[in-house]
Protein backbone atom coordinates (compact mmCIF):
# COMPACT_ATOMS: atom_id res chain seq x y z
CA UNK A 1 0.00 0.00 0.00
CA UNK A 2 1.26 3.42 -0.83
CA UNK A 3 1.86 5.86 1.98
CA UNK A 4 0.88 8.95 0.01
CA UNK A 5 -1.01 9.34 -3.24
CA UNK A 6 -1.78 12.64 -4.94
CA UNK A 7 -4.05 12.79 -7.97
CA UNK A 8 -4.18 15.90 -10.18
CA UNK A 9 -3.47 17.97 -7.10
CA UNK A 10 -3.87 21.73 -7.57
CA UNK A 11 -3.46 24.57 -5.11
CA UNK A 12 -3.98 28.06 -6.48
CA UNK A 13 -3.54 31.33 -4.63
CA UNK A 14 -5.36 34.40 -5.82
CA UNK A 15 -3.63 37.73 -5.46
CA UNK A 16 -5.66 40.54 -6.96
CA UNK A 17 -6.35 39.43 -10.55
CA UNK A 18 -3.25 37.20 -10.58
CA UNK A 19 -3.50 33.47 -10.04
CA UNK A 20 -0.44 31.79 -8.56
CA UNK A 21 -0.34 28.08 -9.27
CA UNK A 22 1.59 26.74 -6.28
CA UNK A 23 0.66 23.19 -7.26
CA UNK A 24 -0.39 22.52 -10.79
CA UNK A 25 -1.85 19.04 -11.41
CA UNK A 26 0.64 17.07 -9.37
CA UNK A 27 0.40 13.30 -9.53
CA UNK A 28 2.56 11.54 -7.00
CA UNK A 29 2.78 8.23 -5.20
CA UNK A 30 5.10 7.54 -2.26
CA UNK A 31 5.45 4.06 -0.84
CA UNK A 32 5.92 3.09 2.77
CA UNK A 33 9.48 3.37 4.17
CA UNK A 34 10.60 5.59 1.30
CA UNK A 35 13.09 8.40 1.96
CA UNK A 36 12.07 11.15 -0.45
CA UNK A 37 13.54 14.58 -1.05
CA UNK A 38 11.55 17.32 -2.72
CA UNK A 39 13.92 19.78 -4.34
CA UNK A 40 13.44 22.93 -6.30
CA UNK A 41 13.91 26.69 -6.07
CA UNK A 42 11.86 28.76 -3.62
CA UNK A 43 8.33 29.18 -4.79
CA UNK A 44 8.36 25.90 -6.68
CA UNK A 45 5.61 24.44 -4.46
CA UNK A 46 7.58 22.14 -2.12
CA UNK A 47 6.11 23.53 1.09
CA UNK A 48 2.61 23.68 -0.38
CA UNK A 49 2.86 20.02 -1.34
CA UNK A 50 4.02 19.04 2.17
CA UNK A 51 1.21 21.09 3.73
CA UNK A 52 -1.35 19.43 1.47
CA UNK A 53 -0.05 15.96 2.35
CA UNK A 54 -0.12 16.82 6.05
CA UNK A 55 -3.66 18.17 5.81
CA UNK A 56 -2.58 21.62 6.96
CA UNK A 57 -3.91 23.15 3.77
CA UNK A 58 -6.89 22.41 1.54
CA UNK A 59 -6.14 21.78 -2.13
CA UNK A 60 -8.04 23.78 -4.74
CA UNK A 61 -8.77 20.58 -6.62
CA UNK A 62 -7.52 17.02 -6.89
CA UNK A 63 -7.19 14.26 -4.35
CA UNK A 64 -4.82 13.52 -1.46
CA UNK A 65 -4.71 10.04 0.02
CA UNK A 66 -2.70 9.20 3.12
CA UNK A 67 -2.36 5.59 4.26
CA UNK A 68 -5.19 4.56 1.98
CA UNK A 69 -7.58 7.21 3.18
CA UNK A 70 -8.70 10.26 1.29
CA UNK A 71 -7.95 13.32 3.44
CA UNK A 72 -8.75 16.39 1.31
CA UNK A 73 -12.41 16.02 2.19
CA UNK A 74 -11.93 15.73 5.95
CA UNK A 75 -12.91 18.38 8.54
CA UNK A 76 -10.49 20.24 10.75
CA UNK A 77 -10.84 17.98 13.76
CA UNK A 78 -10.48 14.79 11.71
CA UNK A 79 -7.40 16.22 10.04
CA UNK A 80 -5.97 17.11 13.45
CA UNK A 81 -6.61 13.54 14.55
CA UNK A 82 -4.95 12.14 11.43
CA UNK A 83 -1.84 14.26 12.04
CA UNK A 84 -1.81 13.34 15.69
CA UNK A 85 -1.63 9.62 15.01
CA UNK A 86 -0.01 9.24 11.60
CA UNK A 87 2.21 12.17 10.79
CA UNK A 88 5.16 13.88 12.41
CA UNK A 89 6.12 17.40 11.39
CA UNK A 90 9.51 19.11 11.42
CA UNK A 91 9.59 22.73 10.31
CA UNK A 92 12.39 25.05 9.32
CA UNK A 93 12.30 26.98 12.61
CA UNK A 94 10.13 27.79 15.59
CA UNK A 95 9.39 24.13 15.98
CA UNK A 96 8.97 24.04 19.73
CA UNK A 97 6.43 25.39 22.18
CA UNK A 98 8.46 27.99 24.08
CA UNK A 99 6.85 27.49 27.49
CA UNK A 100 7.52 23.74 27.59
CA UNK A 101 10.87 22.07 28.31
CA UNK A 102 12.56 19.76 25.79
CA UNK A 103 11.03 16.68 27.35
CA UNK A 104 7.60 18.28 27.75
CA UNK A 105 7.71 19.25 24.07
CA UNK A 106 8.42 15.64 23.16
CA UNK A 107 5.69 14.37 25.46
CA UNK A 108 3.20 16.93 24.21
CA UNK A 109 1.93 14.82 21.32
CA UNK A 110 1.69 11.74 23.50
CA UNK A 111 -0.20 13.70 26.12
CA UNK A 112 -2.70 14.86 23.53
CA UNK A 113 -2.94 11.24 22.39
CA UNK A 114 -3.69 10.22 25.95
CA UNK A 115 -0.65 8.03 26.59
CA UNK A 116 -0.19 7.29 30.29
CA UNK A 117 2.54 9.23 32.12
CA UNK A 118 4.87 6.34 32.81
CA UNK A 119 4.99 5.19 29.21
CA UNK A 120 5.35 8.80 28.11
CA UNK A 121 8.36 9.29 30.27
CA UNK A 122 9.98 6.05 29.18
CA UNK A 123 9.52 6.79 25.52
CA UNK A 124 10.58 10.43 25.72
CA UNK A 125 13.73 9.55 27.65
CA UNK A 126 14.69 6.84 25.18
CA UNK A 127 14.06 9.07 22.15
CA UNK A 128 16.09 11.86 23.75
CA UNK A 129 18.94 9.42 24.01
CA UNK A 130 18.45 8.41 20.41
CA UNK A 131 18.81 11.99 19.18
CA UNK A 132 21.68 12.63 21.59
CA UNK A 133 19.93 15.07 23.89
CA UNK A 134 19.60 13.01 27.06
CA UNK A 135 21.19 15.59 29.35
CA UNK A 136 19.03 18.49 28.20
CA UNK A 137 15.54 17.26 29.00
CA UNK A 138 14.71 20.13 31.36
CA UNK A 139 15.87 23.00 29.18
CA UNK A 140 13.42 25.35 27.58
CA UNK A 141 13.75 26.02 23.82
CA UNK A 142 15.32 29.44 24.44
CA UNK A 143 18.18 27.68 26.25
CA UNK A 144 18.92 25.38 23.30
CA UNK A 145 20.92 26.03 20.11
CA UNK A 146 19.24 25.84 16.70
CA UNK A 147 20.60 22.35 16.06
CA UNK A 148 19.51 21.14 19.48
CA UNK A 149 16.05 22.58 18.93
CA UNK A 150 15.79 20.74 15.61
CA UNK A 151 16.85 17.48 17.23
CA UNK A 152 14.15 17.90 19.86
CA UNK A 153 11.68 18.62 17.06
CA UNK A 154 12.73 15.45 15.27
CA UNK A 155 12.46 13.46 18.48
CA UNK A 156 8.94 14.79 18.95
CA UNK A 157 8.03 14.00 15.32
CA UNK A 158 8.97 10.32 15.65
CA UNK A 159 8.29 9.58 19.31
CA UNK A 160 4.78 8.28 18.78
CA UNK A 161 5.92 6.21 15.82
CA UNK A 162 4.03 7.93 13.01
CA UNK A 163 3.88 6.26 9.63
CA UNK A 164 5.39 9.31 8.01
CA UNK A 165 7.50 12.35 8.89
CA UNK A 166 7.15 15.52 6.85
CA UNK A 167 10.12 17.87 7.16
CA UNK A 168 10.06 21.31 5.58
CA UNK A 169 13.61 22.64 4.99
CA UNK A 170 14.75 21.17 8.32
CA UNK A 171 18.40 22.19 7.82
CA UNK A 172 17.87 25.71 6.48
CA UNK A 173 18.91 27.39 9.71
CA UNK A 174 21.72 25.00 10.60
CA UNK A 175 25.45 24.99 9.95
CA UNK A 176 26.75 22.21 7.71
CA UNK A 177 28.05 19.94 10.48
CA UNK A 178 24.80 20.09 12.41
CA UNK A 179 22.84 19.61 9.18
CA UNK A 180 24.81 16.45 8.44
CA UNK A 181 24.13 15.07 11.92
CA UNK A 182 20.45 15.75 11.45
CA UNK A 183 20.33 14.00 8.10
CA UNK A 184 22.23 11.02 9.52
CA UNK A 185 19.62 10.88 12.21
CA UNK A 186 16.80 10.94 9.62
CA UNK A 187 18.39 8.10 7.67
CA UNK A 188 18.91 6.03 10.77
CA UNK A 189 15.34 6.54 11.90
CA UNK A 190 14.08 5.69 8.45
CA UNK A 191 15.94 2.39 8.63
CA UNK A 192 15.28 1.46 12.26
CA UNK A 193 11.69 2.69 12.64
CA UNK A 194 10.42 2.00 9.10
CA UNK A 195 9.17 5.57 8.96
CA UNK A 196 8.45 7.22 5.62
CA UNK A 197 10.34 10.52 5.26
CA UNK A 198 9.37 13.33 2.91
CA UNK A 199 11.83 16.21 3.14
CA UNK A 200 11.71 19.45 1.20
CA UNK A 201 15.01 21.21 0.61
CA UNK A 202 17.10 23.19 -1.82
CA UNK A 203 20.33 22.11 -0.11
CA UNK A 204 22.55 19.88 -2.31
CA UNK A 205 24.00 18.01 0.68
CA UNK A 206 20.56 17.08 1.89
CA UNK A 207 19.61 15.79 -1.56
CA UNK A 208 22.62 13.52 -1.53
CA UNK A 209 20.96 11.54 1.29
CA UNK A 210 17.80 10.98 -0.74
CA UNK A 211 16.91 7.61 -2.14
CA UNK A 212 14.32 9.18 -4.36
CA UNK A 213 14.69 12.76 -5.55
CA UNK A 214 11.71 14.68 -6.86
CA UNK A 215 12.41 17.98 -8.59
CA UNK A 216 9.75 20.67 -8.72
CA UNK A 217 9.49 23.87 -10.75
CA UNK A 218 6.49 26.23 -10.80
CA UNK A 219 4.18 23.82 -9.06
CA UNK A 220 4.90 20.86 -11.29
CA UNK A 221 7.00 17.75 -10.82
CA UNK A 222 9.74 17.88 -13.45
CA UNK A 223 12.04 15.07 -12.37
CA UNK A 224 11.44 11.96 -10.29
CA UNK A 225 14.30 9.54 -10.02
CA UNK A 226 15.73 6.92 -7.72
CA UNK A 227 19.08 7.93 -6.24
Amino acid sequence: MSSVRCVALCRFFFQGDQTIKALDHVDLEIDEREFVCLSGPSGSGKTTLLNAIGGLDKPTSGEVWVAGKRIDTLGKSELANMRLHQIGFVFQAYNLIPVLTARENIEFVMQVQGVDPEQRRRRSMSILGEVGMDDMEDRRPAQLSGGQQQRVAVARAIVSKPAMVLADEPTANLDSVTAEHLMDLFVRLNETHDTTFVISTHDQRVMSYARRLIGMVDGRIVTDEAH
Partner: protein
Amino acid sequence: MTPMPGAVLFRLAWRNLWRNYRRTIIMLAAITLGVWAMLFMTAVMRGMVDDMVQTAVRSLPGHVQIHHPEYRDDPSIANSMPPPDQMLLDALAQAGVVAWAGRVRVPAVITSERDTRGTTLVGIDPEAETGLSFVSDDIVEGRFLGSPDDKGLVVGRKMIDDLETRLGRRVVVMSQDPDNEIVDRGFRIVGVYEANLENLEEAFVFTGRRYAQSMLNMDESISEIAVLGKSYRDVSDLSHLKQLEGSAREVLPWYELDAYLGTMLSTMDGFVLVWIIVVFLTLSFGLVNTLVMAVFERIREIGLMQALGMRPSMILIQVLLETFLLLAVGLAAGNLLAVVSVAALSDGIDLSIVSEAMQWMGVADVLYPALEIRDLVTTNVVVIVLGLLAGLSPAWRASRYQPVEALTKV
Protein backbone atom coordinates in the same frame (compact mmCIF):
# COMPACT_ATOMS: atom_id res chain seq x y z
CA MET B 1 -12.25 10.56 20.24
CA THR B 2 -9.13 11.11 22.26
CA PRO B 3 -9.57 12.24 25.86
CA MET B 4 -8.91 15.85 26.87
CA PRO B 5 -5.32 16.07 28.01
CA GLY B 6 -6.15 18.23 31.03
CA ALA B 7 -2.75 18.27 32.64
CA VAL B 8 -0.83 19.53 29.63
CA LEU B 9 -3.49 22.13 28.78
CA PHE B 10 -3.37 23.38 32.35
CA ARG B 11 0.40 23.55 32.33
CA LEU B 12 0.43 25.41 29.01
CA ALA B 13 -2.22 27.87 30.21
CA TRP B 14 -0.40 28.57 33.47
CA ARG B 15 3.00 29.06 31.85
CA ASN B 16 1.58 31.16 29.04
CA LEU B 17 -0.01 33.39 31.65
CA TRP B 18 3.39 34.34 33.03
CA ARG B 19 5.14 34.68 29.71
CA ASN B 20 4.37 38.36 29.47
CA TYR B 21 4.46 38.91 33.19
CA ARG B 22 4.11 42.71 32.99
CA ARG B 23 0.86 42.48 31.11
CA THR B 24 -0.44 39.75 33.39
CA ILE B 25 0.46 41.69 36.52
CA ILE B 26 -1.24 44.86 35.29
CA MET B 27 -4.35 42.87 34.41
CA LEU B 28 -4.23 41.07 37.75
CA ALA B 29 -3.92 44.39 39.55
CA ALA B 30 -6.99 45.63 37.69
CA ILE B 31 -9.00 42.49 38.48
CA THR B 32 -7.89 42.57 42.11
CA LEU B 33 -8.84 46.22 42.48
CA GLY B 34 -12.15 45.63 40.74
CA VAL B 35 -13.05 42.63 42.87
CA TRP B 36 -12.00 44.44 46.02
CA ALA B 37 -14.17 47.41 45.08
CA MET B 38 -17.12 45.13 44.30
CA LEU B 39 -16.86 43.45 47.69
CA PHE B 40 -15.88 46.43 49.80
CA MET B 41 -18.58 48.72 48.47
CA THR B 42 -21.12 45.95 48.93
CA ALA B 43 -19.92 45.31 52.48
CA VAL B 44 -20.24 49.00 53.35
CA MET B 45 -23.75 49.20 51.95
CA ARG B 46 -24.79 45.96 53.60
CA GLY B 47 -23.42 47.31 56.86
CA MET B 48 -25.45 50.46 56.47
CA VAL B 49 -28.69 48.68 55.67
CA ASP B 50 -27.99 46.18 58.45
CA ASP B 51 -27.70 49.00 60.88
CA MET B 52 -30.85 50.68 59.62
CA VAL B 53 -32.84 47.49 59.93
CA GLN B 54 -31.47 46.57 63.31
CA THR B 55 -32.08 50.04 64.67
CA ALA B 56 -35.59 49.96 63.28
CA VAL B 57 -36.27 46.47 64.62
CA ARG B 58 -34.94 47.42 68.05
CA SER B 59 -36.99 50.59 68.08
CA LEU B 60 -39.99 48.44 68.89
CA PRO B 61 -41.54 46.49 66.04
CA GLY B 62 -39.53 43.29 66.59
CA HIS B 63 -39.13 40.83 63.74
CA VAL B 64 -42.80 40.09 63.61
CA GLN B 65 -45.59 42.09 65.14
CA ILE B 66 -49.11 41.13 66.11
CA HIS B 67 -51.73 43.84 66.45
CA HIS B 68 -55.34 44.78 65.77
CA PRO B 69 -56.04 44.79 61.99
CA GLU B 70 -56.85 48.52 62.10
CA TYR B 71 -53.93 49.45 64.31
CA ARG B 72 -51.46 50.14 61.55
CA ASP B 73 -53.72 52.62 59.86
CA ASP B 74 -54.91 54.21 63.07
CA PRO B 75 -52.52 53.52 65.97
CA SER B 76 -54.95 54.66 68.66
CA ILE B 77 -56.22 53.11 71.82
CA ALA B 78 -59.50 52.23 70.12
CA ASN B 79 -57.65 49.62 68.06
CA SER B 80 -56.21 47.61 70.90
CA MET B 81 -56.71 43.89 71.32
CA PRO B 82 -57.29 41.50 74.20
CA PRO B 83 -54.27 39.93 75.92
CA PRO B 84 -52.94 36.76 74.25
CA ASP B 85 -55.23 33.72 74.56
CA GLN B 86 -53.99 30.20 75.16
CA MET B 87 -53.62 29.44 71.46
CA LEU B 88 -51.44 32.47 70.92
CA LEU B 89 -49.43 31.75 74.06
CA ASP B 90 -48.77 28.23 72.74
CA ALA B 91 -47.63 29.62 69.42
CA LEU B 92 -45.35 32.07 71.16
CA ALA B 93 -43.80 29.24 73.17
CA GLN B 94 -42.60 27.45 70.04
CA ALA B 95 -38.95 27.07 69.11
CA GLY B 96 -38.55 29.89 66.57
CA VAL B 97 -39.53 32.55 69.07
CA VAL B 98 -36.55 33.99 70.93
CA ALA B 99 -38.49 36.60 72.87
CA TRP B 100 -41.83 38.34 72.83
CA ALA B 101 -43.53 41.14 74.68
CA GLY B 102 -47.01 42.63 74.81
CA ARG B 103 -47.23 46.41 75.00
CA VAL B 104 -49.59 49.28 75.37
CA ARG B 105 -48.63 51.94 72.87
CA VAL B 106 -50.57 55.17 72.42
CA PRO B 107 -49.90 58.67 71.10
CA ALA B 108 -49.53 61.13 73.95
CA VAL B 109 -48.51 64.64 74.87
CA ILE B 110 -45.97 65.17 77.61
CA THR B 111 -45.74 68.42 79.53
CA SER B 112 -43.21 69.69 82.02
CA GLU B 113 -43.46 72.97 83.87
CA ARG B 114 -41.48 74.44 80.97
CA ASP B 115 -42.59 72.89 77.71
CA THR B 116 -44.81 70.44 75.84
CA ARG B 117 -43.94 67.69 73.35
CA GLY B 118 -45.78 65.08 71.37
CA THR B 119 -44.59 61.51 71.94
CA THR B 120 -45.70 57.91 72.25
CA LEU B 121 -46.46 56.42 75.65
CA VAL B 122 -45.43 52.77 75.82
CA GLY B 123 -46.54 50.52 78.67
CA ILE B 124 -44.20 47.51 78.96
CA ASP B 125 -43.44 44.37 80.89
CA PRO B 126 -39.85 45.26 81.74
CA GLU B 127 -38.57 41.69 81.93
CA ALA B 128 -40.02 40.68 78.59
CA GLU B 129 -38.41 43.64 76.83
CA THR B 130 -34.88 42.56 77.68
CA GLY B 131 -33.08 41.95 74.39
CA LEU B 132 -36.16 42.86 72.41
CA SER B 133 -36.09 46.64 72.40
CA PHE B 134 -33.42 49.18 73.06
CA VAL B 135 -34.58 50.82 76.31
CA SER B 136 -33.65 48.12 78.76
CA ASP B 137 -29.97 48.12 77.68
CA ASP B 138 -29.51 51.81 77.26
CA ILE B 139 -30.39 53.42 80.59
CA VAL B 140 -27.76 56.08 81.28
CA GLU B 141 -29.27 57.71 84.36
CA GLY B 142 -31.59 56.46 87.09
CA ARG B 143 -33.11 53.01 86.71
CA PHE B 144 -35.11 50.89 84.33
CA LEU B 145 -38.69 49.95 85.16
CA GLY B 146 -39.00 47.18 87.72
CA SER B 147 -42.37 45.57 86.99
CA PRO B 148 -45.56 45.97 84.94
CA ASP B 149 -46.94 47.91 87.89
CA ASP B 150 -44.09 50.41 87.99
CA LYS B 151 -45.51 53.93 88.10
CA GLY B 152 -42.25 55.56 87.06
CA LEU B 153 -41.52 57.05 83.63
CA VAL B 154 -38.42 56.38 81.55
CA VAL B 155 -37.69 59.08 78.94
CA GLY B 156 -35.02 59.77 76.33
CA ARG B 157 -32.05 62.05 76.81
CA LYS B 158 -33.25 64.40 74.08
CA MET B 159 -36.75 64.55 75.51
CA ILE B 160 -35.54 65.48 78.98
CA ASP B 161 -33.50 68.30 77.44
CA ASP B 162 -36.44 69.48 75.34
CA LEU B 163 -38.66 69.62 78.38
CA GLU B 164 -35.97 71.32 80.47
CA THR B 165 -36.58 68.88 83.25
CA ARG B 166 -34.43 66.22 84.89
CA LEU B 167 -34.38 62.90 86.67
CA GLY B 168 -36.72 62.79 89.65
CA ARG B 169 -38.95 65.64 88.44
CA ARG B 170 -42.60 65.25 87.65
CA VAL B 171 -44.19 65.57 84.21
CA VAL B 172 -47.76 65.23 83.03
CA VAL B 173 -48.69 62.79 80.26
CA MET B 174 -51.96 63.32 78.40
CA SER B 175 -53.73 60.88 76.12
CA GLN B 176 -57.21 59.58 75.51
CA ASP B 177 -59.11 56.59 76.84
CA PRO B 178 -61.22 54.27 74.64
CA ASP B 179 -64.19 56.62 74.99
CA ASN B 180 -62.09 59.59 73.81
CA GLU B 181 -62.07 61.17 77.20
CA ILE B 182 -58.84 63.05 77.81
CA VAL B 183 -56.91 61.33 80.55
CA ASP B 184 -53.83 62.77 82.16
CA ARG B 185 -51.59 61.62 84.91
CA GLY B 186 -48.50 62.90 86.66
CA PHE B 187 -45.35 60.74 86.39
CA ARG B 188 -42.00 60.90 88.10
CA ILE B 189 -39.05 60.49 85.77
CA VAL B 190 -37.12 57.50 87.14
CA GLY B 191 -34.79 56.75 84.25
CA VAL B 192 -33.19 58.26 81.17
CA TYR B 193 -32.17 56.28 78.08
CA GLU B 194 -29.97 57.05 75.15
CA ALA B 195 -30.49 55.70 71.66
CA ASN B 196 -28.17 55.69 68.66
CA LEU B 197 -30.58 57.97 66.85
CA GLU B 198 -31.57 61.23 68.47
CA ASN B 199 -35.12 61.22 67.21
CA LEU B 200 -35.74 57.89 68.93
CA GLU B 201 -35.00 59.65 72.22
CA GLU B 202 -38.01 61.85 71.62
CA ALA B 203 -40.27 59.26 70.10
CA PHE B 204 -41.03 57.08 73.14
CA VAL B 205 -41.60 57.36 76.88
CA PHE B 206 -42.01 54.16 78.91
CA THR B 207 -43.94 53.13 81.97
CA GLY B 208 -45.24 49.87 83.47
CA ARG B 209 -47.83 48.11 81.31
CA ARG B 210 -50.43 47.66 84.01
CA TYR B 211 -50.07 51.21 85.21
CA ALA B 212 -50.61 52.46 81.66
CA GLN B 213 -53.66 50.19 81.28
CA SER B 214 -55.21 51.60 84.42
CA MET B 215 -54.46 55.18 83.40
CA LEU B 216 -56.01 54.61 79.98
CA ASN B 217 -59.02 52.65 81.32
CA MET B 218 -58.32 49.77 78.97
CA ASP B 219 -58.41 46.83 81.41
CA GLU B 220 -56.06 44.09 80.22
CA SER B 221 -56.01 45.13 76.55
CA ILE B 222 -52.73 45.69 74.74
CA SER B 223 -51.78 47.49 71.54
CA GLU B 224 -49.25 45.07 70.10
CA ILE B 225 -47.15 42.00 70.63
CA ALA B 226 -43.59 42.22 69.33
CA VAL B 227 -41.87 38.92 68.55
CA LEU B 228 -38.16 38.38 68.14
CA GLY B 229 -36.90 35.47 66.04
CA LYS B 230 -33.37 34.29 65.43
CA SER B 231 -32.50 36.69 62.64
CA TYR B 232 -34.21 39.57 60.92
CA ARG B 233 -33.09 38.29 57.51
CA ASP B 234 -35.09 35.14 57.73
CA VAL B 235 -38.33 35.24 59.66
CA SER B 236 -39.59 31.92 58.31
CA ASP B 237 -39.09 30.49 61.82
CA LEU B 238 -41.96 32.71 62.86
CA SER B 239 -44.27 31.81 60.00
CA HIS B 240 -46.47 29.67 62.24
CA LEU B 241 -47.68 32.90 63.85
CA LYS B 242 -49.14 33.98 60.54
CA GLN B 243 -51.70 31.18 60.82
CA LEU B 244 -53.17 32.88 63.87
CA GLU B 245 -54.12 35.89 61.82
CA GLY B 246 -57.84 36.58 61.80
CA SER B 247 -60.44 39.29 62.08
CA ALA B 248 -59.20 40.17 65.54
CA ARG B 249 -55.51 40.44 64.78
CA GLU B 250 -52.95 41.00 62.07
CA VAL B 251 -49.49 39.38 61.99
CA LEU B 252 -46.83 41.23 60.00
CA PRO B 253 -43.07 40.81 59.53
CA TRP B 254 -40.94 43.93 59.95
CA TYR B 255 -40.37 44.43 56.24
CA GLU B 256 -44.07 44.87 55.70
CA LEU B 257 -44.41 47.10 58.74
CA ASP B 258 -41.67 49.35 57.41
CA ALA B 259 -42.05 49.31 53.65
CA TYR B 260 -39.10 51.67 53.26
CA LEU B 261 -36.68 49.28 54.91
CA GLY B 262 -38.21 46.27 53.23
CA THR B 263 -37.77 47.89 49.82
CA MET B 264 -34.32 49.08 50.78
CA LEU B 265 -33.25 45.55 51.57
CA SER B 266 -34.54 44.09 48.32
CA THR B 267 -33.28 47.01 46.23
CA MET B 268 -29.86 46.47 47.78
CA ASP B 269 -29.65 43.01 46.20
CA GLY B 270 -30.33 44.51 42.81
CA PHE B 271 -27.90 47.32 43.39
CA VAL B 272 -25.13 44.95 44.43
CA LEU B 273 -25.56 42.99 41.23
CA VAL B 274 -25.60 46.12 39.07
CA TRP B 275 -22.45 47.40 40.77
CA ILE B 276 -20.63 44.10 40.28
CA ILE B 277 -21.60 44.00 36.62
CA VAL B 278 -20.65 47.63 35.97
CA VAL B 279 -17.21 47.13 37.51
CA PHE B 280 -16.81 43.92 35.56
CA LEU B 281 -17.77 45.55 32.27
CA THR B 282 -15.21 48.28 32.86
CA LEU B 283 -12.66 45.55 33.47
CA SER B 284 -13.79 43.45 30.55
CA PHE B 285 -12.36 45.76 27.88
CA GLY B 286 -8.87 45.34 29.32
CA LEU B 287 -9.46 41.63 29.81
CA VAL B 288 -10.47 41.03 26.21
CA ASN B 289 -7.58 43.20 25.07
CA THR B 290 -5.10 41.21 27.12
CA LEU B 291 -6.42 37.93 25.76
CA VAL B 292 -6.46 39.19 22.18
CA MET B 293 -2.83 40.25 22.53
CA ALA B 294 -1.89 36.98 24.18
CA VAL B 295 -3.45 35.02 21.32
CA PHE B 296 -2.05 37.32 18.64
CA GLU B 297 1.50 36.81 19.91
CA ARG B 298 1.10 33.08 19.78
CA ILE B 299 -0.46 32.53 16.39
CA ARG B 300 2.62 30.59 15.18
CA GLU B 301 2.49 28.39 18.19
CA ILE B 302 -1.18 27.77 17.69
CA GLY B 303 -0.39 26.74 14.11
CA LEU B 304 2.34 24.46 15.39
CA MET B 305 0.01 22.79 17.87
CA GLN B 306 -2.52 22.28 15.11
CA ALA B 307 0.18 20.72 12.93
CA LEU B 308 1.03 18.41 15.81
CA GLY B 309 -2.55 17.25 15.88
CA MET B 310 -4.29 19.42 18.46
CA ARG B 311 -7.95 19.78 17.65
CA PRO B 312 -9.48 23.29 17.40
CA SER B 313 -11.68 22.55 20.42
CA MET B 314 -8.60 21.95 22.55
CA ILE B 315 -7.13 25.27 21.49
CA LEU B 316 -10.39 26.97 22.45
CA ILE B 317 -10.28 25.25 25.81
CA GLN B 318 -6.66 26.20 26.32
CA VAL B 319 -7.38 29.94 25.88
CA LEU B 320 -10.44 29.68 28.14
CA LEU B 321 -8.34 27.90 30.73
CA GLU B 322 -5.84 30.73 30.59
CA THR B 323 -8.71 33.21 31.05
CA PHE B 324 -9.97 31.20 33.98
CA LEU B 325 -6.57 31.12 35.67
CA LEU B 326 -6.15 34.86 35.22
CA LEU B 327 -9.57 35.47 36.74
CA ALA B 328 -9.02 32.98 39.53
CA VAL B 329 -5.74 34.53 40.64
CA GLY B 330 -7.26 38.03 40.47
CA LEU B 331 -10.33 36.87 42.38
CA ALA B 332 -8.24 35.20 45.07
CA ALA B 333 -6.23 38.39 45.61
CA GLY B 334 -9.34 40.59 45.47
CA ASN B 335 -11.24 38.41 47.92
CA LEU B 336 -8.30 38.35 50.28
CA LEU B 337 -7.89 42.12 50.11
CA ALA B 338 -11.59 42.63 50.76
CA VAL B 339 -11.62 40.26 53.73
CA VAL B 340 -8.53 41.93 55.18
CA SER B 341 -9.81 45.47 54.68
CA VAL B 342 -13.21 44.65 56.15
CA ALA B 343 -11.54 42.93 59.11
CA ALA B 344 -9.31 45.96 59.58
CA LEU B 345 -12.42 48.10 59.78
CA SER B 346 -14.20 45.82 62.25
CA ASP B 347 -14.19 48.70 64.74
CA GLY B 348 -16.36 50.61 62.34
CA ILE B 349 -15.94 53.52 59.97
CA ASP B 350 -16.42 56.82 61.74
CA LEU B 351 -18.93 58.90 59.82
CA SER B 352 -19.45 61.55 62.47
CA ILE B 353 -18.53 64.34 60.02
CA VAL B 354 -21.81 63.62 58.27
CA SER B 355 -23.67 62.48 61.38
CA GLU B 356 -26.72 64.68 60.71
CA ALA B 357 -27.15 63.07 57.34
CA MET B 358 -26.78 59.65 58.90
CA GLN B 359 -29.48 60.51 61.45
CA TRP B 360 -31.66 61.63 58.61
CA MET B 361 -31.25 58.29 56.90
CA GLY B 362 -31.75 56.40 60.15
CA VAL B 363 -28.17 55.19 60.44
CA ALA B 364 -25.77 55.51 63.34
CA ASP B 365 -22.61 57.44 62.60
CA VAL B 366 -20.34 54.46 63.00
CA LEU B 367 -20.64 52.09 60.09
CA TYR B 368 -19.69 48.43 60.33
CA PRO B 369 -19.00 46.93 56.89
CA ALA B 370 -20.56 43.49 56.61
CA LEU B 371 -19.04 41.06 54.13
CA GLU B 372 -21.62 38.39 53.57
CA ILE B 373 -21.01 34.93 52.17
CA ARG B 374 -23.73 35.28 49.57
CA ASP B 375 -22.15 38.50 48.24
CA LEU B 376 -18.79 36.76 48.03
CA VAL B 377 -20.41 33.93 46.11
CA THR B 378 -22.32 36.28 43.79
CA THR B 379 -19.20 38.30 43.04
CA ASN B 380 -17.02 35.30 42.30
CA VAL B 381 -19.63 33.56 40.20
CA VAL B 382 -20.45 36.69 38.20
CA VAL B 383 -16.77 37.46 37.53
CA ILE B 384 -15.97 33.89 36.46
CA VAL B 385 -19.03 33.49 34.26
CA LEU B 386 -18.83 36.89 32.58
CA GLY B 387 -15.04 36.60 32.37
CA LEU B 388 -15.24 33.30 30.51
CA LEU B 389 -17.87 34.82 28.23
CA ALA B 390 -15.47 37.68 27.52
CA GLY B 391 -12.70 35.16 26.83
CA LEU B 392 -14.89 33.25 24.41
CA SER B 393 -14.32 35.61 21.48
CA PRO B 394 -10.48 35.56 21.52
CA ALA B 395 -10.57 31.81 22.25
CA TRP B 396 -12.89 31.19 19.33
CA ARG B 397 -10.68 33.22 17.02
CA ALA B 398 -7.62 31.30 18.19
CA SER B 399 -9.29 28.00 17.38
CA ARG B 400 -10.35 29.17 13.91
CA TYR B 401 -6.93 30.02 12.51
CA GLN B 402 -5.96 28.10 9.38
CA PRO B 403 -2.83 26.10 10.29
CA VAL B 404 -0.87 27.23 7.24
CA GLU B 405 -1.65 30.91 7.76
CA ALA B 406 -0.86 30.67 11.44
CA LEU B 407 2.44 28.91 10.78
CA THR B 408 3.60 31.51 8.29
CA LYS B 409 2.65 34.49 10.49
CA VAL B 410 5.72 36.50 11.51
